[in-house]
């Protein structure tokens, strides 16, 4: 059994080149948007806009500038599926299409998915969407096919700055921790790891080094499992059913009793 594998993304060295996006699209043969015609989003250099069924990597451009633009910084981050240890999508999938691989990654089997889209609403990171070409939900597979052949995922292989690093989770966590210490010693006190420990969904097999709050990067500060509501929602539903049943019982029986009494008086 191989060790859990994943990505460590150091956002401080990302240069926004989008090589990861291109490598991902090329290896996974993902179709282009609008038949290849480029449309500008007007949001910085980000024309990919978001992760979806045909964009499994997305480089975010976050501009933090003063109003007169004399001071500021760019935050760049290559976003991808987090391959959560406790994966909400896998938990709710009603067809068994979403599975955990021997590498502890989370993969959607396109031939089993029927496109119900429950996983889309369950993912707290907004990673999954339907690929219009297949009609099924799709997302990053952490290049499962390459991993099985002993190769590195296409995106991390293409990353020219080692912002995206691939490896065993234990090794990546060590590397990431050292990098945080290095940055903090150099004065960047805001550096921290998002998802490297078990606090977020049991741990993210794709975790990040960030220098601002998660919300700034479009990441939820406190993502939760969808089943957190299952017990309470079920009990309240049973309560509703019981109340309605009681109302029906009282009215239909009362009516019966009243009519019986009237008939008896006659």
């Amino acid at each position, binding site marked *: 059994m191989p060790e859990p594998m994943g990505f460590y993304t150091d956002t401080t060295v990302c240069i926004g080149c989008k090589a990861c996006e291109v490598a991902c699209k090329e290896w996974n043969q993902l179709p282009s948007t609008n038949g290849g015609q480029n449309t500008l989003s007007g949001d910085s250099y980000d024309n990919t806009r978001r992760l979806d069924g045909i964009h499994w990597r997305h480089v975010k451009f976050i501009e933090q500038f003063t109003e007169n633009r004399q001071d500021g910084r760019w935050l760049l981050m290559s976003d991808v599926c987090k391959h959560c240890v406790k994966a909400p999508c896998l938990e709710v999938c009603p067809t068994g299409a979403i599975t955990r691989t021997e590498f502890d990654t989370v993969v959607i089997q396109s031939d089993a998915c029927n496109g119900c889209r429950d996983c*889309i609403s369950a993912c707290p990171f907004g990673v999954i969407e339907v690929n219009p070409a297949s009609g099924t939900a799709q997302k990053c597979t952490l290049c499962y096919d390459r991993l099985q052949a002993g190769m590195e995922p296409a995106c991390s292989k293409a990353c020219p700055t080692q912002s995206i690093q691939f490896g065993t989770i234990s090794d990546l966590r060590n590397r990431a921790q050292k990098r945080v210490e290095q940055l903090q010693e150099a004065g960047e006190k805001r550096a921290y790891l998002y998802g490297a420990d078990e606090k977020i969904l049991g741990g993210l097999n794709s975790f990040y080094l960030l220098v601002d709050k998660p919300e700034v990067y479009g990441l939820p500060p406190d993502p939760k499992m969808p089943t957190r509501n299952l017990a309470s929602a079920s009990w309240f539903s049973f309560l509703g059913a019981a109340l309605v049943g009681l109302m029906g019982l009282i009215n239909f029986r009362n009516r019966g009793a009243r009519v019986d009494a009237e008939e008896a008086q006659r």
Partner: protein
Amino acid sequence: MNTFPSSTFFSAPPDWGWLIVLYFFFGGLAGGCYFLAALIDLVGRPEDRPLARLGYYVALPCVIMSGLLLTLDLGRPLRFWHMLIESNTFRPMFKYWSPISVGAWALFIFGIFALISFLAALVEDNRLAWPAGRKFRPPGMLSAVIAMVGGFFGFYVAGYTGVLLAVTNRPIWSDTPLLGMLFIVSAASISAALMILLAHRSRWTMPAVAALHRVGAWVGALEFLVLIAVMISLGPVFRAWLNAWGLLLFFGVILVGMWIPFALYWRKDWLGDRNPTAAAALVLVGGFILRLVIVFSAQQV
């Protein structure tokens, strides 16, 4: 930009649209009508049975419609059976912690009960020659079992959809545990309304129709209270309804679907004979708008 009332605001909408709104509506009608019919069969008098049969006549077409709508909404409709059978192993597919998985089975089982009760109602109405079918109608132990088990699954189908929404990470849906309760109570309300409309169309005057009016009014009042509880339980996420959806919720659901029908129920002189049917029609409209607002508003946050 960086203040969000809940971590649910970072998820993506599943693009559940009109087909799902219609499914929630017809599923609610199917389950609710069956439940009310079963209740009438179980505790009502023999002369009430036409009203129970009416409920079964509504339940089957609505449950068939529900299955069709759900299937059409899939990205790959021909793979609808993957919900029940694991496509790789051909073993039964069932996850008790996934509301869609349990709901698919519940819909399937409820469909069987709805079919049996529909056919048995036809037999009792002398519209179908199937002597064995008479056993499925009261009195008798078998008919009671059918009514109880079918009624349970009917209400399950009506309510699991709200639980399904709660077991996501979308704003509104997963920020309250009360949507299942709201859908169940609303299902009873719209089902009572539809049965009242159909009973009046047939000019039925049996006492159970008056009882159904009372059930409709009581359940409508409960639905209003549950809706208020939903709004309170949303906490800061309630701001997601401070827009056109909130207006539609107030005018379409609360005013048109609840308050005006209440007024028509209490002030019987307003429209004369048409009071009950007008109130019932408005309850149906309100029940549809409720599902519309809940499905769409959470996806446009």
